[in-house]
């Protein structure tokens, strides 16, 4: 890929993916031609309504759900907020305790914090050095006041895949609802609401080749959950607001492509991932892999380089046309390194030197070659500048 002649290697697909051209094409008619409001009665509106329902069917089919269990939202963050706050509000009489993990996305952690301020209690389960939640810890954390267990399907920073089926089974044994943030999972690992035992499941279109601003919450039939957005009767009265018709159409097309291509795509990405990991660890001393060696998303590489800081690595990569991400505090205003890496037991000074490369549909073996060609030199240069680098 090039950007005005400049080489561009995009390796930040966990942040967002390019909307696939066939997805954008499917969306286009719904802006200016078939622009009707699905709630209206004339033919133009019916066209839009049909498109929304067709997309709902595609999303449902992709995750093993019934169409009436899929509710469109403005994205993964809204879906997570709705799941957590909606269950908390509707089950307040039953209990006031939520179990989640310490490595969830902020879209889960911050709603939990908000609920704590309202008097709910939240247990943030620790993870092992690879970022895995121990199902036994869920068992221990559940009390007779627990109303929800929320553990992500796969982590966005380190790519660790969680044993959600085992965790949901424990939750259900205690009559507790199970929610999973599956935002990083679609198209990367099989997502089936029954196999995972999910009562609620959040997804986001722009993580799998769809447009930004569109997501969905799967809600299993008969799940006790409050409304999150009050207003019109859209989404069968459970999520008000005029539907984002082009976005929903795009999401339907994108999830069909992503899940349909997964059998070919995931092994291809995993091979590139493994070549990157091996190549980096072999070429750069004092480097470790973050996350699980095998139970990880096919597209996720996350390594920590000692003695250097992540933002510096990103800027030097950017100067060479490579887009990546880091868990260093220096890219945020908080001055705290990644809560995920810290929860895995990484000391802050190592977490600062972390680099995340997440592969996608368009990446090629040449991209991998290019990263392996330039990255060791960048780390070497920054280590020359660093006072922490030991004399050799």
């Amino acid at each position, binding site marked *: 890929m090039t950007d005005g002649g400049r080489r561009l290697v995009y390796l930040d697909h966990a942040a967002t993916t390019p909307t696939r051209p066939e997805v954008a094409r499917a969306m286009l008619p719904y802006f200016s031609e078939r622009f009707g409001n699905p709630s209206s009665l004339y033919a133009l509106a019916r066209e839009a309504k049909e498109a929304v329902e067709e997309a709902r069917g595609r999303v449902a089919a992709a995750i093993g759900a019934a169409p009436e269990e899929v509710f469109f939202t403005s994205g993964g963050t809204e879906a997570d907020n709705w799941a957590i706050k909606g269950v908390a509000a509707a089950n307040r009489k039953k209990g006031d305790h939520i179990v989640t993990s310490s490595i969830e996305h902020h879209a889960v952690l911050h709603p939990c914090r908000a609920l704590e301020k309202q008097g709910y209690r939240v247990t943030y389960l620790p993870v092992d050095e690879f970022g895995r939640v121990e199902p036994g810890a869920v068992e221990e954390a559940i009390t007779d006041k627990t109303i929800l267990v929320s553990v992500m399907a796969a982590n966005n920073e380190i790519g660790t895949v969680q044993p959600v089926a085992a965790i949901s089974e424990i939750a259900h044994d205690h009559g507790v609802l199970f929610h999973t943030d599956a935002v990083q999972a679609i198209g990367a690992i099989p997502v089936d609401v029954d196999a995972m035992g999910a009562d609620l499941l959040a997804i986001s279109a722009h993580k799998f080749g769809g447009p930004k601003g569109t997501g969905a919450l799967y809600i299993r039939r008969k799940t006790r959950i409050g409304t999150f957005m009050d207003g019109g009767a859209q989404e069968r009265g459970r999520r008000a607001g005029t539907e984002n018709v082009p976005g929903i159409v795009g999401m339907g097309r994108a999830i069909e492509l992503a899940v349909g291509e997964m059998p070919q795509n995931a092994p291809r990405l995993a091979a590139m991932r493994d070549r990157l990991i091996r190549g980096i660890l072999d070429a750069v001393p004092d480097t470790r892999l973050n996350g699980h060696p095998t139970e990880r998303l096919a597209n996720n590489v996350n390594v920590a380089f000692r*003695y250097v*800081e992540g933002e510096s690595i990103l800027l030097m990569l950017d100067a060479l046309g490579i887009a990546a991400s880091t868990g260093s505090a*220096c890219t945020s205003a908080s001055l705290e390194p990644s809560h995920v890496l810290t929860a895995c037991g990484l000391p*802050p000074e190592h977490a600062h030197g972390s680099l995340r490369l997440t592969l996608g549909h368009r990446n090629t073996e040449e991209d991998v070659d290019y990263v392996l060609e330039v990255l060791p030199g960048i780390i070497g240069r920054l280590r020359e500048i*660093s006072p922490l680098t030991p004399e050799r």
Partner: protein
Amino acid sequence: MYSEQVMDHFMNPRNMGEIPDANGVGEVGNPTCGDIMRITLRIEDDRIVDAKFKTFGCAAAIASSSMATELIRGKTLDEALAVTNRAVAEALEGLPPQKLHCSVLAEEGIHKAIDDYRARQGAPEASGG
């Protein structure tokens, strides 16, 4: 997000390294926060004849130490002590608000290195380095 000056001093840092016969050394910051600067000075006749840095940190931290060492080279100690973090940030054509602490760290590093030099001079058995 960064000015051209910051990017230039980050990509082509001036005075990077360590003076072997330094007679003033200052190390500031801590790895938990993600910034450590080590400033080494060679001071002769109350004047900074050489200044070098090594920095662990973000682009702003590296650029701030590069610029700070540029600003104090050839200056007397009093002149160098008058170089503020604001002067470092201004010479870099500004820093993002959340990165201003990097220029503060550079000022502190210089002060600490000069303090170290003065302590060495004041010490009873000081022998000029």
